């Protein structure tokens, strides 16, 4: 920038007093009378000189410290919708989210107890806890049955609360009959209590006291 300004100043200075014909001052001019080009060129030169002096403080304020940030556009890991990211100035910023599978949006009617399993399609992730009972049954057959009942009982009880289906009864029955009966009785669904409750609340714990953290 400084070099460009200097170039303009030098060229302007060289033309100070030059007539409008464009010839330099040093050249022989055959025109008579007052040269009207002089004030204009002089003003231009003065302007450039002024700019040169002015440029120093401009430079001072124009100096932007090297920011260690960059703006990139990422795609949402689930929807693919792009969004703006300000990240550290690395050459290639590492992905913020790990690769994940994409699913369709969840339909919360699935959670309604009155809705049957196949009424709402679901393609999202799921886990199956049946294997814990298979594993427990395997252990039981290995001869630590007395202990298995005690150790697996909490898990099976919760599974009964959870699954409450034929799968539970089949697998849990293989573990320990006494404890399973109690669990099933405890987790039998009560139609009167079937409901689908969701809540979201927000409360302020700090407000406008302008305290600087």
């Amino acid at each position, binding site marked *: 920038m400084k070099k460009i300004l200097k170039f303009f100043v030098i060229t302007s200075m060289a033309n100070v007093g030059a007539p409008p014909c464009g010839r330099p001052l040093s050249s022989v001019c055959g025109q008579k009378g007052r040269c009207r080009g002089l004030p204009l060129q002089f003003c231009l030169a003065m302007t450039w000189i002024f700019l040169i002096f002015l440029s120093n403080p401009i430079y001072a304020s124009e100096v932007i410290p090297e920011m260690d940030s960059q703006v990139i556009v990422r795609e949402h890991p689930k929807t693919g919708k792009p969004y703006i990211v300000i990240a550290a100035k690395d050459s290639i910023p590492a992905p913020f*989210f790990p690769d994940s599978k994409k699913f369709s949006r969840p339909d919360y009617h699935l959670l309604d107890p009155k809705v049957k399993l196949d009424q709402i399609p679901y393609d999202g992730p799921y886990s199956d806890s049946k294997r814990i009972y298979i594993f427990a049954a395997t*252990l039981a057959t290995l001869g630590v049955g007395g*202990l298995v009942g005690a150790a697996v009982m909490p898990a099976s009880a919760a599974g009964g609360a959870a699954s409450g289906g034929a799968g539970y009864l089949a697998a849990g029955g293989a573990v320990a009959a006494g404890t399973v009966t109690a669990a099933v009785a405890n987790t039998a669904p009560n139609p009167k209590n079937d409901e689908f409750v969701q809540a979201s609340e927000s409360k302020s714990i700090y407000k406008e006291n302008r305290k600087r953290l």
Partner: protein
Amino acid sequence: MFFKSRFPSPLVGEDKGGGLIQKLTPILTFPHKGGRELIFSLFLLTGCASIFGWDIHAPGLLSEGFIQSVQPAHQRIALYFPKDLLSYVSKDRGGRTADPQTYHVGESYGPMIIEAFQSAFAEFIFLEMEPSADLLKQYAVPYLVAVKIKNFNNEVSGSGQILSLATETTIFDSDLTVIEHFESTGTSDVKRVFAKKGGPQVNLNLALENNIMSIVEHIQDVLKQKSSIS
């Protein structure tokens, strides 16, 4: 450094049924042979139960209802949360008699809150680096929102399951002055949730979405008040 001190890495959720191994460690030198076998068997079974429990990953997407209900605000806003939030995991099994459960809360919460901000604010910027006042001013960001997970709670009962997620959110202006600091809780209470394929996963998703809904609405309210005052 400012944010690291204010927003420490989220902790792994408390395991209400865990800690047995640590408790057993000094007892493992039990002198009697039978007692040692008993404890070893308990140790083995507890470990295996942890491995073979429920591993619950939410879909990590907002529902259509959320997208339709939230009105986008014409506001530039930046969101920040530490990357550690994505690895927030809760092993709260929700009761002594419940199966071991592992809830991968953070991996779903991160994408969901970003999607929510995309829908709720016209000019949304996500900060992947620690924010500073200079940074906000450089990019002309008037407001910054920082979110951290406070607590994840799981209650498994005979009839169903209640999941709730509590978060703390702070709104800063471009000078990193606190405008608002609030706590949000999203709860989902569902009966017979484990009976359906994807039930626990969708239940977790709903609890997260309810939390995010309250955050977004609270922020929009605060910004409306700010704009009406100014």
